[in-house]
């Protein structure tokens, strides 16, 4: 299968003043996205997941590494040249309210990619816009309304329609449902899924929410402090996490069942997370201080041994087609992921 998007050893470094060490937001991240696939990039705030999206979209300069899109190297492509493939690479952002020009009727916003790429328009622009409103479950009459007249969920639908109207190959979704309520979130996830089935578009889905990612993604990439911790099939990673960080992440998600949650909580207390508050470092600070010689997660890892501080673990093959960046993962006690703990559903 040919890869649509191929990112190799991507690094993004932000300089932060004369005195302070530069912030290595993304370090040597490689990922690839095939046609019709959803790859989720998961991590907490400061993990660099949004920076990866920005680098691919050309919104932040790349320090080193290579981004290849449809066979072309786009790592340092200037804005003017982006025009050529701009229709193939689109984005949906977190805040639906700032994603659309507030003084434009939404129909005009949706049509903007078509106006920028008249060569991609097959038919009448107006018909395409009307059809895209139907696709996202809104009335075509809504096109003359302004963003202020819609709810957050509806606006996010419009933003999705805008991203998909030029029939792109890849859509980068940067936390597209984080600001939405649970019931609306489900609507949007279903919409993204339906549109993928219909058009074969690929998603790079950036999120901090593992339960959502488990549902929507085919593959997951877990980031911590700008580096890949674990990468592999979504089901495998969420049901049997192998990296201590992924284990901590999954164990920390509270599930809506008190019995199950009590058991998970005890497990969490006994095993995984180190008390972060006891160590003064938050994720950003770790990223700043870390020189790249050791494992970025060592400071918070309950299993850390000497080698973790001195040698950076490479990604190695683990169980079930998963690749794990940990010196010790083969020797760790297996931890319950989502699949075991959500079995209460069947008991019901």
């Amino acid at each position: 299968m040919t890869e649509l998007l191929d990112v190799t050893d991507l690094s993004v470094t932000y300089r932060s003043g004369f005195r302070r060490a530069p912030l290595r937001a993304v370090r040597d991240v490689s990922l690839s996205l095939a046609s019709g696939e959803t790859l989720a990039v998961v991590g907490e705030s400061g993990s660099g997941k949004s920076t990866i999206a920005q680098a691919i979209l050309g919104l932040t300069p790349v320090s080193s590494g290579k981004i290849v899109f449809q066979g072309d190297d786009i790592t340092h492509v200037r804005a003017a040249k982006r025009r050529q493939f701009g229709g193939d690479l689109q984005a949906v952002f977190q805040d639906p309210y700032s994603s659309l020009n507030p003084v434009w009727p939404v129909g005009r916003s949706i049509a903007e990619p078509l106006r920028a790429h008249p060569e991609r328009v097959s038919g009448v622009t107006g018909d395409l816009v009307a059809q895209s409103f139907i696709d996202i479950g809104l009335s075509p009459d809504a096109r003359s309304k302004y963003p202020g007249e819609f709810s957050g969920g509806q606006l996010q639908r419009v933003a999705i329609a805008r991203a998909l109207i030029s029939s792109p190959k890849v859509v980068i979704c940067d936390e597209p449902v984080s600001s939405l309520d649970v019931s609306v979130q489900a609507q949007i996830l279903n919409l993204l899924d339906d549109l993928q089935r219909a058009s074969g578009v690929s998603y790079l889905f950036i999120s901090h929410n593992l339960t959502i990612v488990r549902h929507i993604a085919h593959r997951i990439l877990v980031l911590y402090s700008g580096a890949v911790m674990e990468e592999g099939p979504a089901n495998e990673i969420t049901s049997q996490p192998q990296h201590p960080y992924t284990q901590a992440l999954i164990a920390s998600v509270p599930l809506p069942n008190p019995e199950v949650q009590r058991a998970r909580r005890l497990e969490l207390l006994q095993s995984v997370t180190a008390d972060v508050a006891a160590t003064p470092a938050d994720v950003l600070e770790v990223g700043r201080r870390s020189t790249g010689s050791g494992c970025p997660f060592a400071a918070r890892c309950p299993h850390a041994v000497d080698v973790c501080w001195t040698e950076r673990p490479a990604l190695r093959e683990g169980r079930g087609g998963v690749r794990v960046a940990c010196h010790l993962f083969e020797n760790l006690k297996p931890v319950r992921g989502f699949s075991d703990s959500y079995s209460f559903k069947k008991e019901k």
Partner: protein
Amino acid sequence: MSVSESLSPITPEDHGNAGPTRPPASARRTFRRIVLHPTGGPAILWLLLVTIACACASLIAPYTPNGEDFTAILSGPTHAHLLGTDELGRDILSRLLYGGRVSLEGVVEALVVAGVLGLCFGVIAGYRGKLFDTISSRIVEIAMSIPAIVVLLMVFALFNNSETWAMVTLGILTSPVIFRVTRAATLAVREDAYLASARITGVSELQIMRRHVAPRIVGPFVVNLSVLAGVVLGIQAGLNYIGLGVTPPAPSWGGMVADAQGYLQEQPWLIVPSGVVIALTILAFVLLGDDIRDVLSLRTSDRSGRGFTSVDQPPIPTSTEIRSASSTPLLSVRGLSVAFGPKRGSATRVVQDVAFDIAPGEIVGIVGESGCGKTVTALALLGLLGRGGRVVEGSCLFEGRELFGTSEKVWHSVRGREIAFVSQEPMTSLDPCFSVHSQIGETVHRHEPTLSRSEVGERVDELLVQVGLSDTRDVGRRYPHQISGGMAQRICIAVALAGRPKLLVADEPTTALDVTVQAEILNLLRRISEETGMAVLIITHDLGVVADLCRRAIVMYAGEVAEIGSVNEIMTTPAHPYTQALLAANPIFATDGEALPSIPGTVTPPAEWPVGCHFADRCAFQIEACLTAPIPLLEVDTNHYCRCPYGPRISIEIGRR
């Protein structure tokens, strides 16, 4: 004197032009609103009148500006000379009309220069940022510190008393005002995601500027330009007054004031026409600027104001009396209704018929989506509804004492000491100017004023240890920008604990935090509650958080309690269709390859609440009876209440499927 210093630019925030929820711009409607504005209309009318009259001076002026009539010197208003004559018998009206040309031309020249310079540099600096921004901002700062009058005097000397060159210079000197405004407005727009979307799509930078950026900065630009016009006119008249720019006997407004001053004793009237015209024109410019700003901000508030228009709201249902779960509840809320809005008549209820109990030491969760009245309910319990909001009905007994309707003094003694509050945004709850130690210390001192300095210090350390920050010296010395979000929330909890409260109200305390940090904060709240016997009311949208922390849960939907029960009942045998749907929409229950069961539509806003069930329009089990009458809260089981008479049966039906 420095011109620019005396002008404070009206920032885009002032009229909310950069806000994300701005409704559509309709230039025609905006113009109509300005014209219909009580001061804007007259201002425009006056400016139009003056401009047209001065432009047509040669046609309508009864005399030439320098035509001397020695038969009528210093005459005052007469039939021949409507506004009187000056010391040489020249007609004041004619001189005003001709002199106005100079003034208005000068204003236009200065404004064009200031506008073009300020706009171009401001937009580029705001949009491009980086080096251009740094350099141009420094230049502007230097320009603003140059005394304008000195420069103007030099220009008059250099360019042979040329009015035009002086006005161009004035334009350059006042352009920083426009620069700063446009730069700020551009900066605000630049961060919006739709610009990124356009850039990704391949829309050229020029197009982005023209289509997306320009319309958003027009508002602040025009407002400030109008105010600047008034200032420039004032300066221009001042220059003419001291005899610069226009050489007498050529007429000018400022020069006429100077002439009149010399004959103030003989003919006091002489100063009136020129003085009034200058004052009115300046006033008109400034008022016009203010009105444009008012109209633009009115546009911004359109959306938020919409909720307060409804007068007739459906009646409140009468619910089953909720029996206390414990014999002596700590807090007992009954029939709570909260309304927002200006007056009793036109207020909109946003919360109605809320009733629940909290036992001492119990952890209770309020769960629901945004706009369901969770936070309003919590704020009502703290007497913190703020402007426009008030409790219209209901009672709130805290240890048997009624809190609603009491004075601010009583609330003051309750807040912090009896009921404490932790908010969603830990970072904004802390004052960036004070260290952690002094912030907690201040609260300790407020609650226990008798403690000595060292005793306060000990108590602060004790609180820090209590919230899991054992390295008290290191943490205490830090300032809010030196701590992480999780640590900030711990410190906020420490502040809340300072008054040894019996109930802690936590409004989405973990929503802004990462999931691993959330787990720690939840554990912390649980531990503190166990150790101190403090009850906790936690507000959240995450059913997982409720399952983890709470013993009982209150599910709210569109301002009402939909269901109350033990967490176990709510999660495993939910009675209300909303609770069922909310649980089902959680992706953790999703089956591979199947669509998530979502709830169609969105939460009904308070102004549009129906007579019947608030959830009916989104409910899969809706029948006619749901729409006709208000639905009361009914007892399903012991201490399990539900606002749906069919809920329990539906719940069984689903279970069978």
